[in-house]
C-alpha cells in the first residue's frame, strides 16, 4: 500500500517538476511550487507512517528499522540511511524553494525558479530512477531485505522484524536533531547559488542586486550548519565514549568546508555591497559553496572513503558526479556571460583598511577550506598514484589548518572597529592599551595553572583580547542603535568564536587520561577527588541490553554504561559518565566488565563546556538580525 502510493507520488512529483521547468506562464508557478511542497511533505509523512506501522514490505523499513526500535529512533530512522535522507533532502529543498519564491524571487523573471526546479528534478530523479525509500522488498535476507524493486504493483514479501538502525544512531536523542539541522544548512546553500546564477543570467542594470539576495540567503544555512556541526560534536562527545568531539573524519571535513566558504562569503559580500569590489570572487564563492555540498554528499555516500559516517553505498556516486558537472557547467556558463560585469570590480586601495581586512579574512578562510579539501581527498589520490593506502590524520590538520585559524582569531580582534581608511596600529594600541593589559594579565594568571607551550600562549592571549574588546564594545555601544544589525551579528559570532577558541585550546593542550582497574565497591582517586564505584545494574530493553555502572564522587552519582545492541554485529558502545564543571570534565568510560572487576578509562577533559558555550553564543548571533527583519 505505502509502497505503491510512495512510488506513484514520487513519479507525480517528478512529472510536476518537469512541467514546472518548462512552464511558460507565471500564473501557475506559485501553485506548482506549493503543490510540490505539499507532495514532499506528504512523502515524508508517508515514510514515517511506514516506519511506525512496521511495514516491512518496504525494503527501507526492513533494513533500517525494527519492531523493537523506540519511537524517537523510528522517527529518526527516516534519515538513518541514504535513500531516506534523500527524501529529507527533497523536503528541505522544496521548503527552501517555497520560501525563496515568497521572499526573494526576482519579480521580472522566472529563471530563478527554473534553476531551483532543475536542482530539485536532479534529486527527485534519483529517488525515481535509481533508489527509492519506498522500494518494495521482493527477496528477503536472513534479517531485513536483500532485493527490492522501484516499480509499483509488484508482488512483495514481508519479514517479521527489521534489521534496526545502526546502533550508533539509536543511542542518544541528539541523533534525531543533528542530521536535520545539517541538512537544512547543506540544502540551504542552494539558495545563494540560485540567487547568483539566476540574477546574473537575466542581467540587469543594477546587477549588484544578486549579492544582496545571496548574502541574505546564505546566513540561514550558515546558522543551521553551525548548529548542526556543534550538535554533531556534542553527540560524539556524549555518546561515543572516546572523549573527543572532532576527528577530522572525512564527513566532518565536508561539513566544515561549506561552513568555511559560507563564512568567507558572508564577509566578502559585505564589502561588495559597500565598495563594489570582489565581484568575481563572490560569484566563485557562491558556486563553490553549492558544489561543495554536492561534493560532500558524493564523498560520504558513494563509499569512496571509509568513515564512521559513510553508512551507505550505491550508485549515487556517479549520479552526484554528473550533477556536479551539470551544475558546474551552468555556473561557469553564466559566469562567462558576465565577464564584462565582473571586470567592473574595483581594486583594493587600503590594504589595512576595512576592505583589506576582509580580503585577508577571505584568504585565510578559503585557504583553510582548500587545505581541508586536499587532506580529505589525498588518500584517494595517493592510492590511485602509488596503490598504497595512507591515513591523513590529526597531525596534518594541526600543522596546516591550525595556524590559519589562529591568524583568523588574531584578525577578529580588529573587527570591533574598522574604518575604510588604513588602520593606524600606533593609535589602535593607544586606544586599547588598558584592554590589552587586562587581557595579558588574565592570560598570565591562566597560564600559571597550565602546562605551557607557545601555541597555547598565543591562542589564549588572542582569545582573551578578542573577548575583552568585543565585550567592552557591547558595553559601550550596544544600547545606542549604532551600526547595522549585521555588524552586531558579526560581533556576537566573533565573541562566541573567541570563547570557543579558549575552550578548544585548553582541551587540546591540557587534557589527560589514565586507566584504572578495580572491583565493585572500591574507590579511586583522580585529580584530587575520590570516586566510588558500585556494582553493575543490568537493564534489558527490547532493542538492547545495558550494563550500567554507577560511579559517585562527593557530590553526585553518574552512570557509565555498556550498550549491547541486539541484531548487530558491532562491538558494544560505551557511554560515558561525565562529571561536569566549567573548567574541566571528569569523563569516565568503562572499557570492559568481567564479573565484578572493571577496567575504566578516566579522562580529565578541559574546556569542553567553554567550547559549547562559545558555539552557543555564535549560534545566537541571529538576534540582531531579527531586530531589523533581516533574516
Amino acid at each position, binding site marked *: 500500500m505505502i509502497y505503491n502510493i510512495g512510488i506513484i507520488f514520487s513519479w507525480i512529483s517528478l512529472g510536476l517538476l518537469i512541467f514546472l521547468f518548462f512552464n511558460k506562464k507565471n500564473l501557475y508557478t506559485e501553485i506548482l511550487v506549493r503543490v510540490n511542497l505539499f507532495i514532499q511533505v506528504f512523502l515524508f509523512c508517508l515514510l514515517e507512517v511506514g516506519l511506525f506501522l512496521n511495514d516491512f514490505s518496504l525494503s527501507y523499513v526492513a533494513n533500517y528499522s525494527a519492531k523493537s526500535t523506540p519511537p524517537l529512533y523510528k522517527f529518526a530512522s527516516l534519515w538513518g540511511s541514504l535513500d531516506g535522507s534523500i527524501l529529507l533532502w527533497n523536503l528541505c529543498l522544496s521548503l527552501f524553494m517555497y520560501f525563496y519564491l515568497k521572499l526573494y524571487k526576482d519579480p521580472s523573471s522566472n529563471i530563478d525558479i527554473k534553476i531551483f526546479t532543475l536542482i530539485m528534478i536532479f534529486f527527485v530523479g534519483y529517488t525515481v530512477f535509481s533508489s527509492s525509500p519506498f522500494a518494495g522488498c521482493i527477496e528477503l535476507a536472513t534479517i531485513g531485505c536483500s532485493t527490492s524493486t522501484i516499480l509499483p504493483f509488484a508482488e512483495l514479501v514481508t519479514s517479521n522484524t527489521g534489521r534496526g538502525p545502526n546502533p550508533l544512531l539509536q543511542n542518544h536523542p541528539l541523533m534525531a536533531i543533528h542530521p536535520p539541522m545539517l541538512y537544512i544548512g547543506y540544502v540551504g546553500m542552494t539558495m545563494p547559488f540560485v540567487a547568483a546564477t539566476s540574477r546574473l543570467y537575466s542581467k540587469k542594470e543594477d546587477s549588484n542586486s544578486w549579492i544582496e539576495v545571496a548574502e541574505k540567503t546564505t546566513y540561514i544555512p550558515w546558522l543551521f550548519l553551525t548548529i548542526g556541526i556543534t550538535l554533531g560534536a556534542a553527540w560524539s562527545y556524549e555518546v561515543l*565514549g*572516546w*572523549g*573527543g568531539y572532532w*576527528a577530522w*573524519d572525512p564527513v566532518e571535513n565536508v561539513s566544515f568546508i561549506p561552513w568555511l566558504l559560507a563564512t568567507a562569503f558572508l564577509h566578502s559580500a559585505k564589502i561588495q555591497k559597500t565598495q563594489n*569590489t*570582489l565581484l*568575481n*570572487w563572490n560569484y566563485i564563492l557562491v558556486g563553490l559553496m553549492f558544489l561543495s555540498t554536492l561534493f560532500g554528499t558524493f564523498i560520504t555516500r558513494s563509499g569512496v572513503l*571509509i*568513515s*564512521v559516517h559513510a553508512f551507505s553505498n550505491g550508485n549515487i556516486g556517479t549520479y552526484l558526479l554528473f550533477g556536479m558537472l551539470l551544475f558546474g557547467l551552468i555556473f561557469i556558463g553564466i559566469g562567462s556571460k558576465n565577464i564584462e560585469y565582473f571586470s567592473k570590480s574595483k*581594486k*583594493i586601495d587600503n590594504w589595512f583598511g576595512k576592505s583589506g581586512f576582509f*580580503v585577508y579574512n*577571505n*584568504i585565510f578562510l*578559503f*585557504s583553510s577550506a*582548500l*587545505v581541508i579539501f*586536499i*587532506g580529505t581527498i*589525498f588518500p584517494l589520490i*595517493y592510492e590511485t598514484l602509488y596503490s*598504497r*593506502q*595512507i*591515513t*591523513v*590524520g*590529526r*597531525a*596534518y590538520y594541526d*600543522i*596546516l589548518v591550525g595556524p590559519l585559524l589562529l591568524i583568523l582569531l588574531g584578525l577578529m580582534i580588529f573587527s570591533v572597529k574598522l574604518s575604510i581608511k588604513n588602520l593606524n596600529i600606533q593609535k589602535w*594600541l593607544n586606544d586599547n*592599551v*588598558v584592554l*590589552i*593589559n587586562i587581557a*595579558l594579565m588574565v*592570560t*598570565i594568571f591562566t*597560564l600559571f595553572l597550565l*602546562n*605551557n*607551550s*607557545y601555541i*597555547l*600562549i598565543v591562542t589564549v*592571549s588572542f582569545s582573551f583580547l578578542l573577548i575583552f574588546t568585543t565585550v567592552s564594545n557591547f558595553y559601550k555601544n550596544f544600547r545606542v542603535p549604532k551600526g547595522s544589525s549585521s555588524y552586531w551579528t558579526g560581533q556576537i559570532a566573533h565573541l562566541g568564536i573567541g570563547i570557543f577558541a579558549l575552550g578548544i585550546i585548553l582541551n587540546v*593542550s591540557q587534557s589527560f587520561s589514565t586507566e584504572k582497574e578495580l572491583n565493585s565497591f572500591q574507590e579511586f582517586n583522580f585529580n584530587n577527588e575520590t570516586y566510588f564505584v558500585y556494582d553493575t545494574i543490568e537493564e534489558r530493553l527490547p532493542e538492547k541490553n545495558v550494563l550500567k555502572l554507577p560511579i559517585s564522587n562527593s557530590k553526585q552519582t553518574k552512570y557509565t554504561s555498556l550498550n549491547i545492541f541486539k541484531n548487530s554485529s558491532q*562491538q558494544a558502545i*560505551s557511554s560515558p559518565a561525565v562529571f561536569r564543571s566549567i573548567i574541566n570534565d571528569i569523563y569516565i*568510560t568503562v*572499557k*570492559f566488565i568481567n564479573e565484578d572487576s572493571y577496567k575504566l*578509562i578516566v579522562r580529565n577533559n578541559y574546556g569542553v563546556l567553554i567550547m559549547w558555550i562559545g558555539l552557543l553564543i555564535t549560534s545566537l548571533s541571529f538576534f540582531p538580525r531579527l531586530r531589523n527583519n533581516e533574516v
Partner: protein
Amino acid sequence: MKSRYITFVLILIIVSMPLISPSSESRLENWSKILLCPVCQGETIYDSPSEYADDMKSILKEQIDNGLTDGQINAFWVERYGERIITNPITNNTEILIVPISIVLIFISIFIRKLYVKK
C-alpha cells in the same frame, strides 16, 4: 605612556612562561596518538577503547621502555600494517605538506595579484 611599559613587561613574562614550566608529554602518549587502531573506524589507539588498541599500546610501551628510536618504532609498525597505520603522514610523505602549501600559495598570489594590479 606608563601603561605601554606595563604591556611590554607583561609580554616579557608571558613569553618566558613556557621556559619555566614546559609542557610534558610522554613518548608513549605521543606515539599512541599517531598510531591508527586498524580495527576501529578512524580512531587512534590513544582514543580507542578496544582491546586491540590495548594490545598495541602494550607493545608500544615495551618498545619505548627498551629505548627504540622513533625510526625503529615507525619501521616496525609500517612493516606489519602498511603506511596506513601512521596517522601522521608527514613523517613519511613530504608531498602531503608540499602539495597543499603550494596550492594555497598559488591561490593567494593569484588572488592578491588580481586585486592589486590596476589597469
